[in-house]
């Protein structure tokens, strides 16, 4: 998952980047409303972690703007306020979930996965297609019941393809999932990951659509 973290505290923001990165997500960080607007306009994210009190405004403004222009990216609010009215206001403004500071990193991670999969129309925690089962919480994968060991990047590529089995994912889309803004993207990185994945989950499972991208071949 590619997640945007909008948080002005550098220590917390860094912790989120590293911590959520450990559970397989790619994190981009911004520290104010202006940067958040720019980031949201430039990059598609699977979820947004949004702090309410930002130096140049309120996270609620960002949220309202997103919803107004029809951006359905799941948003989890982080706030230091406990009052129910604040939570209600956040949720009513279009937030998908809410966590009060301080929070548990694992809980945040789980909630992000939950709101992201709900947005994709899935209720269950497992991604299943073509005999492959991915557990995004534990980063475990099985093929026809057999456990397969995948690197974090491989897992991310496979997740991207399996979220919508049969739908073609372009190389750029997959790259967007894998790499944050500051990260160097090797030109053939996606090809390398797909190549490695094919040896692990089956050569036929991932189909290359010439000139367009990749997709999971339908074997329910």
């Amino acid at each position: 998952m590619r997640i945007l973290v909008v948080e002005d505290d550098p220590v917390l923001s860094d912790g989120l980047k590293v911590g959520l990165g450990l559970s397989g997500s790619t994190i981009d960080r911004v520290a104010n409303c202006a940067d958040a607007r720019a980031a949201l306009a430039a990059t598609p994210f699977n979820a947004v972690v949004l702090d309410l009190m930002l130096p140049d405004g309120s996270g609620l403004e960002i949220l309202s703007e997103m919803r107004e222009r029809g951006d359905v990216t799941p948003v989890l609010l982080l706030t230091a306020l406990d009052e129910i009215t604040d939570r209600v206001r956040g949720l009513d403004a279009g937030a998908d979930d809410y966590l009060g500071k301080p929070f548990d990193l694992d809980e945040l991670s789980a909630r992000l996965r939950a709101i992201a999969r709900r947005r994709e129309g899935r209720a269950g925690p497992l991604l299943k297609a073509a005999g492959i089962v991915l557990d995004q919480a534990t980063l475990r994968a099985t093929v026809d019941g057999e456990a397969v060991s995948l690197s974090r990047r491989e897992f991310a590529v496979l997740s991207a393809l399996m979220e919508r089995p049969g739908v073609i994912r372009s190389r750029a889309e997959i790259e967007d999932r894998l790499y944050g803004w500051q990260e160097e993207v090797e030109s053939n990185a996606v090809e390398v990951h797909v190549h490695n994945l094919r040896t692990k989950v089956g050569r036929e499972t991932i189909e290359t659509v010439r000139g367009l991208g990749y997709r999971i071949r339908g074997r329910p």
Partner: protein
Amino acid sequence: MISLRRRLFALLLAATGVIWLSAVIWIYLGSRAELKHVFDARVREAARMVHSLVASGNMATAIAATPFEGTSYARQLSCQIWSFDGRLVARSTGAPDESLAQDKEGFAERQLNGEAWRVYTIVDAAKGLRVVVGDRIGLRDRLVRDLVAGLITPALLIVPLLAIMIWVSLGRGLRPLNAIAGEIAARDGEDMRPIDSEDAPTEVHPLLSALNGLFDKVEAARRHEREITAFAAHELRTPLAGLKTQAQVALAATEVPVREGALNKILVSVERTTRLTRQLLALAKLEATPERKTDSKASVGAVLREVVSSTPIPEGIAVEFDPAIDQLPLSGDRENLHLVLRNLHENAVQHMPKGGRVVWKGLSNGTGIIVEDDGPGIPDEELAVVARRFFRGRNRSAFGTGLGLTIAEMAADRLGTRLTFENRPDRQGLRCSVIWPQTDQGCVGA
């Protein structure tokens, strides 16, 4: 507390009573004067009539004609005819035996057997007779009293009715006040909406606008407090969230550099939280202590040296201290001075890029000191609010608490000095000035 209704009731009743009393007195006096006039005229008329009969020689008819005997009012005129030699020639029935007459012709008042009489005497020198007609003053007074009593009795009967009407009318008249009181009483503590004065009587408007003004003030104070609480919650919980997250990262990380990075971040965060706690305590203390204490005075140079030497300076940052500051005749309460200088110094050091310089020097006219840094400065639109509590501007440092400049400004105020922030005109960076007030004798420390 006196009830407005009772007060108005008493006032109205008293006023009505006074007016009635005045009216009664007026009627009494007026009637008495008028009656006296009328009765006197009748007494004189009767005397003349009797005299004219006497003059025509008809004595018996004269006495019989004496009018007004035994009226229903038991008021009687008494008539006597005396000869000059003191013999009672004739008298009317009921007239006293003693003489009512006087020597002179005309009106007189006489006492006879303890009774006051009003008499009119006609002296007929030709016949040697005196004709006297008299009237009992007691009877006249009784007539006046009866007249007044006749007026007062229904009035007294009306009084309770009038009182009830006043009481009820007051109740109705004061109803808008009760309505407003009811509206305010029914509010809960959160409701600070202004009271609608549209329907209220104009007399109550000043009171209502004063109340509404108070509501506004209370609401503003509460909003301010809520904001402060919200900021405080944010500023306290965010570093805690950072600490917890980094601790979880350190526990979960398998790679050594990741773990070490997280642990270092924890140290940074603890440092900042420590500082935040210190700042909050300093702020609470500043707010609790009375303004401007001058227990122990200290000179600027000494305190500044102490501040500079006790603040850890990150590598690559230089602090310059103009020794001329020691010569400045500026001083103030040690604790407040320390708070001002320390927070300004920390603020400057925190925002310093590598290789930056923090420079402390005196103002050229000797009325204050300034500190300049090479940091990013403060955007112009933030300059006015930079000392606001928990305000952390766009160019925030990782260590900032949003309280340093608030404390500096509060302490500067206690010192009696003026604190100003401006961006350096010569290059990027912030300049903070602490300026002591000028007096005729020159510059003094507060």
